[in-house]
């Protein structure tokens, strides 16, 4: 961080106002200070500090043995990270954009995900894969994708997606402590858009716990990452028309906090799910299936998905591709009035 951020004490903790990039940076620093086996690797993360500057300053602080500027190979980054994780390290790999994870996909789904199972727990792979995902920076087809569903479908992986700086830092440290491979999706649209007070010290936010960010009675709205803000905006919008929306931030996508969702839907009887990824076989379909299975008799309206369209991610019209508030609002109203 070039400029010194405002810092203050809050209930005994020193907190600093940080954006998401700074909070993740602070989480990485904290985890690296706690445990010398934590090591970072990825393309351009060292000298450059990452194309989004998330790892800025860490190579200087921890040395080039702990912050590896790797060759341009996602297979190499993820494949060697697995080996490191098998031998006592806790590698945190950065994939520069989620769109570029596929060259290393095999190592994640066939190796990292299955290593514990196929050795009956004798070996395990405590690694974290950080990657910026989603639209909103005019990145077009290859700098905007949201491939979380592919990893949720893969047994053995955990999938996390924070929406704000506080959660991001705590979830990231928890993910690094976790003994299983964790995919950590960072909403790049939020990177510099949101600031919060974040404790300077290392802390954790547990995996697998969703958060009700806006309690409500009439419709449940489930979102995560960058779309959380859109859901929230839409909720505020429809509140003016008397529709009271409960907004849930999933935070961990898998294993899911199914209880939080089901109990909310049992209350509201209506649900709208929002995600950026294409609709078909997106995580929204799983949420609809789970809710329908578990709260069928409570449902007063069909669960609704407001999502990216089933096309590659476009450029010029990305604001019409993304499920922004203007598309969530009518969905909430329709659901409420069904």
């Amino acid at each position, binding site marked *: 961080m070039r400029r010194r951020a405002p810092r203050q004490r809050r209930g005994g903790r020193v907190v600093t106002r940080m954006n998401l990039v700074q909070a993740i940076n602070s989480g990485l620093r904290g985890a690296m200070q706690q445990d010398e086996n934590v090591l970072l690797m990825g393309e351009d993360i060292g000298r450059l500090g990452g194309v989004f500057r998330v790892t800025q300053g860490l190579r200087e602080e921890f040395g080039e043995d702990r912050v590896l500027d790797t060759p341009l190979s996602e297979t190499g980054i993820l494949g060697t990270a697995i080996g490191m994780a098998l031998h006592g390290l806790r590698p945190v790999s950065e994939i520069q954009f989620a769109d570029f994870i596929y060259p290393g996909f095999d190592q994640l789904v066939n190796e990292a995900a299955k290593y514990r199972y196929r050795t009956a727990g004798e070996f395990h792979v405590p690694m974290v894969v950080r990657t910026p995902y989603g639209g909103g920076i005019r990145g077009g087809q290859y700098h905007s994708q949201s491939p979380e569903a592919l990893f949720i479908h893969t047994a053995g992986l955990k999938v996390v997606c924070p929406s704000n700086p506080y959660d991001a830092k705590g979830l990231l440290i928890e993910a690094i402590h976790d003994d299983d491979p964790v995919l950590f999706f960072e909403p790049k649209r939020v990177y510099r858009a949101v600031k919060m007070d974040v404790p300077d010290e290392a802390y954790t936010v547990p995996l697998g716990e969703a958060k009700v960010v806006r309690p409500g009675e009439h419709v449940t709205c489930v979102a995560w990452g960058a779309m959380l803000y859109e859901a929230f905006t839409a909720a505020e919008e429809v509140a003016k028309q008397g529709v009271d929306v409960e907004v849930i931030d999933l935070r961990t996508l898998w294993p899911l906090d199914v209880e939080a969702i089901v109990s909310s839907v049992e209350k509201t009887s209506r649900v709208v799910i929002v995600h950026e990824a294409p*609709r078909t076989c997106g995580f929204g379909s799983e949420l609809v299936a789970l809710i329908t299975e578990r709260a069928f008799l409570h449902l007063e309206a069909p669960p609704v998905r407001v999502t990216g369209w089933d096309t590659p991610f476009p450029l010029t019209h990305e604001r019409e591709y993304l499920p922004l508030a203007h598309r969530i*609002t009518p969905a909430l109203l329709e659901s409420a009035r069904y």
Partner: protein
Amino acid sequence: MHVIREDGSLDPTLDPGLSIDQVVALYKAMLRTRIVDDRLEKLQRQGRIAFHVGSLGEEAAIIGAAAALRDRDWIVPCYREVGALLWRGYPLQRYVDHMYGNAGDPLRGRQMPDHTFSKSHRYLSVSAPIGTQIPHAVGVAMAAKKRGLDECVGVFFGDGATSSNDFHAAMNFAGVYEAPVLFLCRNNGFAISLRTEHQTAARTMAEKAAAYRVPAARIDGNDVLAVWRAVREGVQRATDGGGPTFIELMTYRLGGHSTSDDPSIYRSQSEVDSWRKADPLARLRKHIEQRDVWNDDLESDWRAICDAEVKECVLRAEEKPAPELRGMFTDVYAEQPWHLREQEAQCVGGPRAKDEGDES
């Protein structure tokens, strides 16, 4: 291998024997590419376009190779070779429209700037993922060979791309199937911030070709005639049934990786300055001036022509509206299936974002 010597003269033992008109045409194309690049970079800084990835310093490698390929040969680009497409006569207006993602964009606003293509110019589509085009090139070459066509393929990629899965697979397939393909590795010293010497322990990229028994050459990529000569030799080999050739084009990326980059973080100005002395344009200009076919007047005339042309294209591009919204839903498949018909209707008939197209 130097064809154009320090003093501007040609090494007669290496001179590929281009006519002076051809040599001047190369220079003009290189300069035009640079002028276009400069202008686009400014437009990006002014916030008028979102992004640009340029070829400053690498024009000889790009234009020289494109010129040595025959019209019937395919070019399979990375993202930095729009100069090669312009060399083949692609309309500048179309390119600038694409840079704006407007209604004139042949991509219909579906991709980031600089992701061009043109079937009629035998120029495949730029993809952002590094390396993926390399096996495509081998496949095109295999198809040409199977179909008995007198064609070969030149595929561009960077030093960083040699670490990709696709490079490895493509080189291996090319070797095994003796595909008529030229691997044109622009070694510009960097993969974003990573220096070539950290990309691999190999001392040269050309060394890598031996792993696939692909003949290789390492060329001064700032010497356009050396590039031309090496690539034409590769074309000859390919069309003689001799299979693939790997050519390492040694050059230097004088600009940032793209307009999103800040190269001052990872390299010194003095390093850049020292490379500016090896500027491929200056080098070629010295030669053509020595041969009395170029001078300051011609230079400023040509600059003026190019400037005016770009300016005009920009003007027109800025007048054009955004591409049709419904264009977001076509070309996913040959025929639009029911779900995209539905989604198109929902989107086009639905509410609009407040500042659509204006995301920051």
